[in-house]
């Protein structure tokens, strides 16, 4: 079920809020209701996804307890449990990618498995790993089964994050604060959900028509329409993700639960490092805290070159995490190179460029990387880049642009509106959430 669909807004959300507020003072009852509704939300797409997430919850709860209670083999159980989760993710998401490439390299014809791709598996796998590592470091003192179950399946963040820590969630769901109806939070949550809905339905969806048309007929594009197509996708992607985050945070807030900030005007970033502090913030934090820092701290002396190598590895991983395709790997590679460039530049150059120019350059670099996020294969991305940079004929372009404007005036209107919102208005956090999120920021993953 998607947040912006009729069935979610008219049926699932009112039903959930009604049942939740009828039972919210009774701990067990409240959690059982949320677990069942979250599973219903998850199964709406495909009931066959359900056994896998249930299996994952059961096994990981067992492994977490083993890690917590073990005295000698603590590390062994942690490694086993992480391998289990990676294998699960690999089997359902990546195995066909490797079979495909193996066939290509060796000229063989091994059949693909064509397993169903369980939604949200990338997110809940990372979230479960945070739980297991925190068990290993004895950060988690108490983990009742119902709390762990709800932590994994809690519907507002199950499909696309934010990725949260167990203690962050548990402290809230068990706090007395949650057992009091807070009208202020309810209204803020509803308002945030509405902002997200508008972004998705009126901006992202409208932009997608032009983007789909552009990517579907690359050979007909000239430089101007190619640039418009690429920026339209960047803004579409921005509003898609931003809308999802708003709606997820809004749903949770209507139940008096504050999820961490996950999106903070990333297209206003002054460089790639800044971009990743603003885009998918909880994913960046996960990669830093659970992969980057552990790898680096295992070395006696941390050299700059080694840290840059790890940075590139992390971004390749982040790219591949988004999907089993060379385009996502290349997207990660471009971001890794960009971040390394931002680290190296101050060592080489001894001057600062203006903030406006920094934002402009970062925006354009991000726009180019997003082309590969949207492309079906690397060739499609390269073709669009060729059209943007090489297919220049100014006289024809002006006539073409006029024609394009008349045919797609709604798109141009949406594009201008998008630019105004992205660069000149306050973001959702600033409008409705700042105070709440600052209270919880220190506990962010």
């Amino acid at each position, binding site marked *: 079920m998607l947040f912006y669909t009729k069935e979610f807004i008219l049926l699932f959300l009112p039903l959930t809020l009604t049942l939740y507020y009828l039972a919210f003072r009774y701990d067990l009852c409240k959690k059982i209701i949320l677990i069942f509704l979250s599973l219903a939300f998850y199964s709406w797409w495909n009931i066959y996804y359900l056994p896998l997430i249930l299996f994952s919850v059961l096994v990981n709860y067992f492994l977490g307890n083993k890690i917590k209670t073990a005295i000698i083999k603590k590390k062994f159980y942690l490694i086993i449990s992480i391998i289990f989760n990676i294998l699960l993710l690999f089997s359902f998401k990546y195995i066909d990618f490797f079979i495909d490439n193996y066939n290509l390299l060796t000229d063989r014809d091994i059949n693909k498995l064509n397993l169903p791709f369980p939604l949200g598996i990338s997110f809940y796998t990372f979230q479960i790993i945070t739980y297991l*590592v925190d068990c290993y470091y004895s*950060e988690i003192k108490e983990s009742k089964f119902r709390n762990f179950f709800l932590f994994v399946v809690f519907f507002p963040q199950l499909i696309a994050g934010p990725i949260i820590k167990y203690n962050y969630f548990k402290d809230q769901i068990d706090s007395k604060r949650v057992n009091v109806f807070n009208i202020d939070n309810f209204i803020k949550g509803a308002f945030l959900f509405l902002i997200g809905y508008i972004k998705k339905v009126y901006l992202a969806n409208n932009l997608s028509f032009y983007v789909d048309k552009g990517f579907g007929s690359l050979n007909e594009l000239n430089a101007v329409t190619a640039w418009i197509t690429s920026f339209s996708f960047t803004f579409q992607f921005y509003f898609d993700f931003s809308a999802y985050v708003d709606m997820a945070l809004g749903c949770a807030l209507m139940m008096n639960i504050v999820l961490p900030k996950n999106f903070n005007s990333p297209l206003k970033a002054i460089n790639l490092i800044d971009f990743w502090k603003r885009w998918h913030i909880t994913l960046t934090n996960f990669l830093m*805290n*659970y992969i980057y*820092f552990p790898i*680096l*701290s295992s070395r006696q002396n*941390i050299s700059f070159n080694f*840290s840059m190598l790890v940075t590139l590895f992390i971004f390749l991983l982040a790219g591949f995490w988004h999907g089993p395709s060379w385009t996502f790997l290349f997207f990660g590679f471009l971001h890794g190179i960009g971040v390394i460039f931002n680290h190296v530049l101050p060592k080489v150059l001894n001057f600062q460029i203006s903030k406006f120019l920094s934002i402009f350059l970062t925006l354009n670099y991000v726009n180019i990387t997003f082309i590969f996020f949207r492309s079906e294969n690397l060739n499609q991305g390269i073709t669009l880049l060729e059209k943007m940079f090489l297919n220049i004929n100014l006289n024809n372009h002006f006539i073409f642009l006029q024609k394009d404007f008349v045919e797609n005036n709604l798109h141009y209107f949406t594009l201008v509106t998008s630019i105004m919102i992205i660069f000149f208005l306050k973001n959702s956090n600033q409008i409705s959430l700042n105070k709440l999120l600052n209270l919880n920021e*220190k506990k962010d993953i």
Partner: protein
Amino acid sequence: MKVNKKKILQIVSHHAKIPLVKINDKSSTENIETWDSLAHIRIILELQDLTNIKIPTSNFGQFNSIEELVKKFS
């Protein structure tokens, strides 16, 4: 063993390559551009060595300001 606040400021100044006078209680990874991920891990590791206070690597990101470092190590 704990360290004093001045020592923490010196360590941050050294690894983030920023003059000591430009660091204060409000300084953090958010407002000091050179306090990047590499500087951050070097700061935490040095403070861990000096104080023998160990922090799980999964929590390194939490200690991203002078205020947090002082609370933990001083």
